[in-house]
């Protein structure tokens, strides 16, 4: 079942296109990774999907309805997680924040925040302030806040780009676990080729700016992945090479498919 449709999407900043002629669809429950050269328009694509910027041309449809403002069942995790958490709210109050205008009672709010925090492997830090946590823990809080509303679609913009390698592996596995447990649809931007293959059910490769689709590669790896085994497998290495090749040789229309 198709959840998200992006058709002929184009977005201009002051006359210059950042993304152009982007067309793809995402099925419900899929985890799609988007990768592309630095500055090619990946963040712009996510913003357009979220309804944070208006497309100059083309359209984004969620459940078949055009996206005009941020849809209710969508959550966004920003790359700059440190600044997207509110420093004056404790961890718990940051996480339960999106429930405060959603007619969820106080008790249920606390319960769901605790559940979301436990889901990302954070317990016992409820009453701390975000800046009292490490970068990896802050990113877990940001993910918990995104999940607390039980979104149908989760957008993540380079969510693990600024945490250390060990934390990154943990967070990647956490994301796949949570995503499969809840059948959440995820659209994740990353500039890391390995990460895109390890995490994704599909990898979309974008061209240099203005971004258009260069390749749409299915990832035929077992659903259960593990950092050492999967990354060492022949299928993984082959896919990684494929993504790297498509990244380096953009603009070949025959390559799309």
């Amino acid at each position, binding site marked *: 079942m198709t959840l998200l449709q992006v058709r002929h999407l184009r977005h201009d900043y002051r006359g210059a296109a950042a993304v152009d002629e982007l067309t793809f669809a995402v099925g419900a429950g899929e985890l799609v990774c988007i990768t592309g050269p630095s500055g090619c328009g990946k963040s712009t694509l996510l913003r357009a999907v979220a309804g944070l910027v208006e497309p100059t041309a083309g359209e984004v449809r969620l459940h078949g309805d055009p996206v005009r403002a941020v849809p209710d069942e969508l959550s966004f995790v920003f790359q700059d997680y440190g600044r997207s958490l509110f420093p004056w*709210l404790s961890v718990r109050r940051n996480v339960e924040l999106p429930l405060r205008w959603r007619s969820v009672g106080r008790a249920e709010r606390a319960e769901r925040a605790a559940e979301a925090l436990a889901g990302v492997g954070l317990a016992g830090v409820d009453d701390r302030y975000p800046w009292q946590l490490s970068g990896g823990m802050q990113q877990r809080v940001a993910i918990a806040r995104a999940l607390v509303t039980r979104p149908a679609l989760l957008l993540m913009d380079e969510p693990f780009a600024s945490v250390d390698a060990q934390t990154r592996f943990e967070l990647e596995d956490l994301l796949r676990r949570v995503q499969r447990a809840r059948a959440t649809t995820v659209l994740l931007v990353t500039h890391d080729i390995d990460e895109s293959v390890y995490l994704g059910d599909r990898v979309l490769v974008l061209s240099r700016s203005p971004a258009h689709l260069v390749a749409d590669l299915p990832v035929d790896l077992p659903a259960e992945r593990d950092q050492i085994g999967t990354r060492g497998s022949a299928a993984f290495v082959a896919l990684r090479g494929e993504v790297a090749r498509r990244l380096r040789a953009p603009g070949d229309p025959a390559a799309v498919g």
Partner: protein
Amino acid sequence: MSAAGRFLRSWALFAAGVLVWEVATRLAGHPFFPPPSTILVTGARLWFAGPVERAFLGDTVLDDVLPSVLRAVTGFAVAALVGVGLGTVLGRSRTGMQWCGPLFAFARAIPPPALIPVFLVLFGIGGRMQVVTIAFAATWPILLNTVDGVRSLDPVQAETVRALRMPPGHRLVLVVLPAALPKIFAGLRLSLSISVILMVVSELVGSVDGIGFQLRQAQHAFDFPVMWAWVVALGVVGLGLNAVLLAVEQRALRWQPTRATGVPR
């Protein structure tokens, strides 16, 4: 131990200064400059001569100090309400400050004591004139800092607010005002000292009670120990009000990394 040590260190210079002053005034023996001990004894007789059931507080504490403090606090509270309220509205509106900016710049440039004659004509001698004067002068720092504060929302936080679909009311209370709070408190601190200054100035020229009034009475009667005692009282009132505001600020901004104690960062 270390808290006591810090307390001693910060007040040592003050104590030494008082001691030097004591010795110097005793040696000089000039009637304009009574020694601190005399001032203190005079003050004690002035303020703590009341009956037991009033905790020994003298009549003048109820008749002069209390009205003074109440007027300063009332004027300051009005300024805080108007400043934060109007500042929030203007800061959030796109064109508000374009309309009002020059007006505020002009109004703020007028030294507030210059308006006392105007307010005297409008409101007559008494508490009303003083509260209005204090409120008028104290509003500007709060107002302008609030405008500045509610505008300085971090762009990532602004986009987060949009991505979360936060309704305007929640946005104001949960994001805009907390983000502006450090700047608002900077304005409040400035305004509090302005409030105390204008409390005295307005009492010196247009009042029939209050610390400033008593100060002037003592001066006219050439009663210098009493005059000095009232100067000391002003210092104590200023310190006290400031301590209260600092405590409130410490509580309201305890989320700031630089304020938290015992947390490494």
